[in-house]
Structures are given as structure tokens and as C-alpha cells.
């Protein structure tokens, strides 16, 4: 007896869902690439194995350096697509960062962060990439775009103890002292 009406998703949400479905299909087609550990992923020449565009492959490589985490093809593709809308010269930013990493023989992002002579504009863009991958979101205005939620890197440091909201571990799975918690009581 009702004239029930489903929630109407916004155009943006529909696009996100559509993109996600396509990417999931793409991931299946690409095989198990995104489950590989980070070293294997880097060694496997992603552009060839996954048939990612060269630009996305380069972005994935730089993203991996900037976060020290396994940036999967899906994550790289989603993040690249979202960032490209806000950083039109993203490809040249990626190329510049890649050149810098090679030239200075940097093996960890902390070494990059310790540099004192990085171009400020380039540094800002590098941190935009890090921020996006950690938050799973590009932008902080009303047009902010989410490209990852459960996979966002900000959840990694606490993943062993805390759930990502909406992804509970099941009834009665909390209560004991978390094994990762080290008591450091100050007297």
C-alpha cells in the first residue's frame, strides 16, 4: 500500500559505483596481480602484466615509493583518475618525482622527506598524492571524490586492532586487551 521510493543516488555516486564495478571486472581480468606482495609487484613490471596505461603504471611506481605500501593496480588506477581531474599535469609531476628518486638514489620516502631542496610546487603535489592514497579521497571541498574506503592506507597502522567502520569482525570479538597495545603508564 505504499508508493515506496528507493534512495536516489547522486550522479557522482552512480559514477563511482559504475567505475568500481568496471574496475572490479578489470581486476578479475588482470588476475591476481593486486594480491602480490610489494616486492613482487614492483619486480613484475606492472605496465606489461596488467596492461595498465604507461601513465598509470608510472603513477603506481611513484605512489609505491611515496607511501612504502603496495599500491595495487586498482588503487593506482582509481587514484590516478581522480587526481588527474585536479592535477592536469599529473604525468609530468610523476615524471619529475621519478627522476628525483633516481637521481638522488632514494630508497625510502623518509629520505625524500629529509631533502631540503625539493621544488615547493613539486613537493605539494607529491604530498597530494600521499594524502589521497591515505584518505582514499581526492579533494576536501564539496566535490571531493572517494576512490577507496576499506583499502585506504590510513587504516593500515591500526588494522590489527580497529575495524574499518561498517566492517566488523563479528560478535564478541572485542574485550580483551589488544595484543598490539603496549601499556606505558606514567607514574
Amino acid at each position, binding site marked *: *500500500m*505504499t*508508493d*515506496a*521510493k*528507493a*534512495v*536516489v*543516488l*547522486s550522479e557522482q*555516486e552512480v559514477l*563511482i*559505483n559504475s567505475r568500481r564495478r568496471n574496475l572490479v571486472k578489470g581486476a578479475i581480468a588482470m588476475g591476481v596481480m593486486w594480491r602480490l606482495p610489494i616486492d613482487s609487484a614492483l619486480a613484475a613490471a606492472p605496465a606489461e602484466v596488467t596492461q595498465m596505461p604507461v601513465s598509470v603504471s608510472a603513477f603506481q611506481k611513484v605512489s609505491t615509493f611515496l607511501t*612504502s605500501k603496495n599500491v595495487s593496480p586498482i588503487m593506482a588506477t582509481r587514484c590516478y583518475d581522480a587526481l588527474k581531474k585536479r592535477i592536469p599535469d599529473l604525468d609530468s609531476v610523476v615524471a619529475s618525482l621519478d627522476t628525483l628518486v633516481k637521481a638522488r638514489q632514494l630508497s*625510502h*620516502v623518509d629520505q*625524500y*622527506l629529509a631533502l631540503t631542496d625539493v621544488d615547493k610546487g613539486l613537493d605539494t603535489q607529491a*604530498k597530494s598524492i*600521499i*594524502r589521497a592514497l*591515505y*584518505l582514499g*579521497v581526492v*579533494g576536501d*571541498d*564539496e*566535490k*571531493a*571524490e*572517494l576512490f577507496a*574506503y*576499506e583499502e585506504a592506507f*590510513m*587504516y593500515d*597502522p*591500526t588494522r590489527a*586492532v*580497529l*575495524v*574499518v*567502520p*561498517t*566492517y*566488523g*569482525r*563479528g*560478535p*564478541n*570479538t*572485542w*574485550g580483551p*586487551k*589488544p595484543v*598490539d*597495545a*603496549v*601499556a606505558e*603508564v*606514567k607514574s
Partner: protein
Amino acid sequence: MDYDTDVLVIGSGVMGALIATRMAQAGKAVTILEAGPRVTRAEIVEVFRNAPIKLSLTNIKLQGAGSPFPNPPHIPSTYGDYLQLKGPVKYPTKYLRVVGGTTWHFGSALWRMIPNDFKIRTLYDRGRDWPMTYEELEPFYCEAEAELGVSGMDGQDEGGNGGEAWPPRSKPFPMKGLPIPYFMTRLADQLKVGGYNPIYEPNGRATSAYKERPLCSGNNNCNPVCPSGAKYDGTRHVDEAERHGARVFDNSVVYKIEADDSGKIVAVRYKKPDGTEHRMTARYFVLAAYGIESPKLLLMSTSEKYPNGIANSSDQVGRNLMGHTGIAMNVMASEDLWPGQGPTELLVYMNYRDGELRKQIPSYKTKLRNTVATSGLASKLMDQGVYGSKLDAEIKRQSARSLNFAIDFETEAQPQNRVTPSTTAKDALGIPKPEIYYSVNDYWNAGRDFGVKDLQKMASLINATDIKMDTNHQDRQHIMGTTIMGNDPRTSVVDKDCRSHDHPNLFIVGTNVMPSASCVNPTLTGAAVTLRTAQVMLREV
């Protein structure tokens, strides 16, 4: 005379749905008119997951991007600029206009008031007394706990004194309490030396299979939506009412209540999103549109016979708006405690819930938030320029140690705090938006000053650092008052049965009938009063 339905219920939240269920179970023809659309859990969860901003109570700043609940033009969301906030203190409350109502996004704290909360004028010369006692309401508290499926710790002193079980109850909780997260037991140990008595909050999350609800699985997403349905929401009773034959018309915005010259309510008028107008008659009417929309509708329903609106001979409709205006404190603990495990709230302190002190300061509740704070912490750290290995380390450290203490103060019924239909701002259907004037008095200010010192004491007991106090009148989204209950028709809107003093076949239910607010979440009290009203109605409908 023929009627379209025996009982017409305006609003499909928990209160309206409870009445509708009881009436439908008794074989009455029941119709619910709901302003908003139906939503499904899966859709809301999916929209939430895809939203770029995820605050515990959805996003206020970026309404379009962050709120998972619908925001169509005919029922603008309260997360936007729908509420016209006036007065010295903002009252940016959040309620949902969807089938099932605001319990979709409530935290599900389901408290009983204590006996003295019903007679604060007599005992403490503050606020208003209720026209009923705790003892009269107690059996209905039991019914409400069973209907909503409350889990709780039997034997606790919810009066806050660390003593015997209180308030008195004739039945145990329907379900045992939830497992207590580590941070709460550890914090309780640390605060005990200061005389603080921990109370684990009764709540609407299932701890055993209960009326088709699964067990709480610790998704930590009670706000804005429980992903699994372990938490009670009003759709449970909407569904139950429908199973017994009730009809639900969604997207039906009631804009006028009609009464005849004898005072009897005869019909309501409502609009659909396309602007078409409709009319429905009934023998009995129940107004259950919560504390902002209900008085707005009554005040909009003017006529030659009722120039001040329906049920308003006392001029009290819309007045006496109350809330739990609060303060909060963020600190960094001195050890890893890991808030964020399990559901979003549970540990509460109420050392000052009752006693002679209430003559000077309001009753208050101090709660520890238990939300996964990663997103906010990560953003803030990167804003501060923290990246690389240190970013991971700080996300972990701060997630394990950041604590939020929040105080909810009782507020008094004051006539100047009121809801009125705006004379200038209208929604897409041409219906006035609600205008809210709100303020706090020196009683609240005295509570704030006392509460700040109390919070500082708690912080010192756990050797906390980085103490940040927010005393800026935080709104707890607990709407009370505006159609207040009392024995005297000159000073109240409904009697103790929730029947309008002016209209014999109009009942008004919800937390908006409460004459005093106590310091605890009002939903269970509203439900208990509603079930008492259902019993009254069943004797005559």
C-alpha cells in the same frame, strides 16, 4: 459517518510505529503518513561507504557529499540549511524524515529516567514536575525494553552512586549486556580511585538473536547506520504494523490538521513530492512527527476557529524546547587504550545525576566516545605536515590514545525556547521551514563551570596530556519539549495520556511531551510513554 481509517498516525518513527503496531494488532484500521521516502539498509550503507567524508553522525559541512540519507526537495535534510536557527545558542539538531525515523542513526542508548527526575520542581525548585510518577511508568518501561530489544547490565546503579541497583525495575533486561571493550575496563580502573563509578549504558543492540535482529558484530558504525541491523530502528515496528495490516504512505508531507467547531479532529491534508494535495479522514489521530515537525504542523494548522493553531489554547505549542546541551574534552591518554573497538558508546559516569546539588547545577552524564577516529587523525596529521614513517606511527599512537569525554547536561523547560513556522523560509512544497530559538540560562552555565573542573579531574587521574576543552554549547540531538505534558490545560499541551487538552481524538506522542529532560537519552522514556498512550487508546478506539 465513514472514515478513511480508524487511526491515522503522522510520522513513522519509533513512536508512531509503536502506536501503529499496537492498534493494528488489535484489529484497527491504521494508516501511517510519512513525509519522507523508504530507505533500505543496504543502500544507506553503500552510500556511506562511497561518501568522501565520514563523521560519526554523517557530514554536516559537506551535506551533499557526506550524508548517506536522502535529501530530496520536499523534505530537506536537517544536515543542510533547513532549520532556521535563531537565538543566542544554536540548536543544530539532526532528525531523519524517512520511513523508520531518526532511530536509523541514533546511537541506541536506551535509558530509564530515575524517580526523582519526575519531580524536579518539588524536590529542587527547577523545571517542571511530570503529571505521573516513575512507578506509574515502570511497567511501560519494561514493555518498551522488550519492544525495542534492550541489552543491559542487571544490577547496576544507574543513579551513579556505585550502590545498589537503581532505578527499581520489575523485570530484568531482555538481553544481557555487550562485551565491554578493553579501553573501558582499563579506564574504569584508572578513574575508580577518584570515586568515579562506571556505568555500562543500556542500549538497543542485540546480544542474542532477537526478533529477527542479528548479534552486534562491532562494526563501530551505529551512527549513522547499523550495517547489520543488530541495532533497533523504527522500521522494525513499521514492518510489524504492516504485517498486521497497517498501511504506510511514504513521501506524504502533512501540512494541515483540520478540526471541527466542537474540537474534534476530522482530517489531515498532505502533499506529495509532485505538489498534488490530498486529504484523509480518521476517527483518531496520532501526531508522532518528533519535536520540531510536530509543533510546526500544529502551529501551521490555523483556522478561524483556531487562530493560534491546533492544540494550542495554552500557547505552549512549540515552547519549552529542551535538549542535552553539552561540553566535551579531548585528551591524549598516557598509555595505549584503543578506543574504537566494539560499538560506538557504552561507558558512562553519572556521579552527579541526582541529589541536592541539582538545586544549583543540572544533572549531567559524562560519556566516553568509542569511535574509530582514524580518518580525522590522519587528515589532521597531514595538515600538520606529518608524512612517511612518522605518519603511520602517529596514526597508530594517536588512535590508541585519543579520548573524547562528552558531558550531556539536563536543561530546564523554558517557554522562550521555541519552534515556530518560519514566516519567510519555505521548502520546495511551499511549507514553512522550522524556526528555532534556543538559549541556556545561568543554571546551565553553573553546570558548565562545574563540569569543566570535573573533566579536568578525570584527565588528571589518567595522566592525560594535550587537554582540549570545548564548552561551546554542543547539541546532543536529543529533542525534548515543544508539546509538553501536564495536568493543567492552561500550561501544557497534552495530559498524562498524551491526549490534547483541546481535542479529544488527538494524541501527541514522542519525547516532545516530556516535561523534564533528565540527563539521559530520552528515546526509551518516549517509547514507554507512547506504549502507555497506546493502552489508553485501545480502551476507546
